[in-house]
């Protein structure tokens, strides 16, 4: 098991390096001027050139990359060109806000997805299966930007039950676990949960149906095990793959949904990325993408390590 963990960690290092290269280069491929963040659109050429030199954007790309990577390894992701604030502080505060949303949306999607998928798989090809499958297809198909707006119109504008936007009456810095704040989380969390809910439902449905069709289940029943005990065996077999899918979905959620966070003016990493993209704020873009990618890499690493603990077949292999 230790060797397995060390092997997984060793794989993570080159993946992380490749991620830094892609993060750095990707933002340079997009057309647009990195100084749009600070210079008015009609700034004359000499102002732009002077700024490029001041911010180091006139250096060759490999040199810019090496400098950036060197600082990043020491935890310094530079400063936002637009605001002057450190990229780390910007990203960390945004990721904190997204984590709140991601965990809420994630929990909702995992619970709903597991229940619906389990029911659909267990009662395969029945009415229950059809209803659960329809819900999951709607979940993955519905554009969540549209869904967010519809939920806002219904629950905020018409019924006035829930707020339309924001991370609390006083903003995210004054977050508290009381109803006044949690009600701001409800609509964006529901909106964010539908796609992962749909994916998890479909995955678990297929896994449960597949496992139930295997011979060992017949053998278990022949041995006289009741439904509950058989179900526990099914869960153990389904869990590793389901866990992997959930881990991936959590990674996507932590990456932040640009659309959902913009619709609800939720100050998370998606909202931050949105601003950085439109402003061509390269250091902020690079830093944000890098941190989010690393979160993904770490999450996958955790899932890879936890899976064998659940599935003895993986331990043996």
């Amino acid at each position, binding site marked *: 098991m230790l060797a397995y963990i060390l092997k997984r960690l060793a794989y993570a290092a080159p993946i992380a390096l490749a991620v830094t290269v892609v993060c750095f280069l990707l933002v340079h491929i997009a*057309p647009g001027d990195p100084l749009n963040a600070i210079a008015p*659109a009609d700034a004359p050429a000499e102002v732009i050139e002077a700024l490029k030199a001041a911010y180091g954007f006139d250096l060759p790309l490999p040199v810019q990359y090496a400098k950036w990577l060197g600082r990043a390894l020491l935890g310094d992701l530079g400063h936002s060109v637009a605001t002057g604030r450190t990229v780390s502080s910007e990203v960390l505060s945004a990721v904190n806000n997204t984590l709140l949303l991601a965990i809420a949306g994630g929990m909702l999607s995992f619970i709903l997805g597991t229940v619906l998928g389990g029911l659909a798989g267990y009662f395969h090809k029945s009415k229950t299966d059809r209803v659960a499958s329809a819900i999951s297809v709607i979940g993955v198909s519905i554009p969540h930007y549209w869904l967010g707006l519809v939920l806002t119109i219904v629950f905020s504008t018409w019924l006035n039950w829930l707020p339309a936007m924001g991370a609390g009456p006083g903003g995210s810095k004054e977050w508290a676990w009381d109803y006044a704040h949690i009600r701001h989380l409800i609509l964006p969390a529901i909106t964010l949960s539908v796609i992962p809910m749909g994916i998890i439902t479909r995955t678990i449905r297929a896994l449960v149906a597949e496992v139930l069709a295997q011979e060992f289940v017949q053998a278990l029943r022949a041995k006289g095990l009741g439904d509950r005990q058989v179900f526990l065996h099914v869960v153990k077999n389904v869990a590793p793959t389901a866990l992997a899918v959930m881990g991936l979905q959590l990674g996507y959620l932590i990456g932040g949904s640009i659309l959902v966070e913009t619709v609800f003016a939720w100050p998370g990493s998606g909202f931050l990325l949105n*601003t950085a993209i439109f402003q061509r704020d390269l250091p902020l873009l690079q830093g944000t993408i890098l941190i989010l990618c690393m979160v993904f890499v770490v999450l996958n690493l955790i899932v890879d390590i936890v899976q064998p603990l659940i599935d003895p077949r993986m331990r043996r292999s």
Partner: protein
Amino acid sequence: MLKRTSGLMGWLAAVQLSALIAAPTLHAETVARYGISMADIPLTTGQPDRGAGAYQFTGHTLYDPLVAWEANVGDRPGKLVPGLATEWKPDAKDPTKWLFTLRKGVKFHDGSAFNADAVIWNLDKVLNDKAPQFDAKQGAQVRPRIPSIASYRKIDDMTVEITTKAADSLFPYQLPWFLISSPAQFAALGGDWNKVASQPSGTGPFKLDKLVPRERAELIRNNDYWDAKRKPQTDRVVLLPIPDALTRTNALMTGQVDLIESPAPDTVPQLEKGGFRIVKNVTPHVWPYHFSLLPGSPWQDIRVRKAANLAIDRDAIVQLLNGLAVPAKGQLDPSSPWFGHPKFDIKYDLAEAKKLMAEAGYSKDKRLKTKVIIAQGGTGQMLSLPMNEFIQQSLAEIGIDIEFEVVELENLYLHWRSGAAADMAKSKGITAINLAYVTADPFYALTRFQDSHYIAPNGVNWGNYKSDEIDALLAQSKTIFDTKQLDANLTKVHEDMVDKALMLWVVHDVNPHALSPKVKGFVQAQHWFQDLTTIRMD
């Protein structure tokens, strides 16, 4: 016992009397929550970023310029008014030297005095890269807006001399963009502009109480503000960045904010039914197609340019926007002092448009095909895609087939700065650019598009218009210090622009705001500068 009782009664009476005296001064704080269309709070260090529309939020609230714009009137165009300078005039012998008499008795929010040293310090902040307080970001924001300044010096504690590169009567129009922040505060915060951003100090009618990046800025009334006519009518204004128009509108309808800028056009009827007030006004903004006049461009033919202008039903576009626009009759609104009497009347006349196209040699079998670069959206671009599709269909009716190159707004700015002649434009066959323009002053409205000195890379005369007559008129305008004469010159420039149909002018934005019934007062200026001191709540 009697003595004690009477003593107690006396004490109670005294307490009641004190309460009565104090009562008028005790009141609940009035708060206006303003949903703004930006994705973040504009910079608070002194020179806001995010364009002209940002100055109303963290520019002219926290700071003052030497020469201000009259933004607290809505029934007529504003004008330049004294700010931190009470008087300014060019030297009679050398009109490149401007003397500014500074306002006495003004203090920054931190208590330090405003004087000539502060002005020089602020000029160094944006123009002198050797100065310890120089800030590249603030400099980048404001330098393109104050291009005339060559040098400056202190004459005495309350007098500053600024020298321009050449005689320029329009120089004062540049100064509302240049704001004065406190040198003492900068020093007290260790010379760190990032710290100043969260604890700014200006002389403005508001102070910054709280700043949460990307979420809110809370401005509180400056009770010691020097201009009694501009004391804020609300104790606290909370700015909330809500970039999505529908989200902003929903926030207003659910009572999370009290006023918003730029409501989603489709929601206007619903807002009006719900008792919300839509406020709009003539705004120095125009939404045009800027034609390339280079050889090879089909727009070189004035008949084609005029035909395009006559082919657009502007009233229909205003309907498309639910009334949140006005038809354009030129680069400027007819209420502008420089509009004049152009001979070319921009209106919807399909028959005349077709006639002009026929005269230009086009027919059913010989259609004009060309490409226009547009943005998919973004600040100032209004409803870019539907409006452009409307234009495309309209022009198709007169034999002009437009293909669009749709790019993101920041990318469009790159094309704009590069000019029509740039390789990317040439090789892609782009002959016009659709970009909304601020037309707030003569330079922004006329000079930068018509003066041949501003052809790329020196400026944004994108279409490469060159006229010796107009160049001479504009050069002469800079030496005219008499307002009537100057207006006459600028009028000729505008008339020329319209008569030559240098652009396809479609509509002017009206900078709409939607107000909840709780907002009892808000004066919308005919400018992108708005005065938030006029906001008054229930």
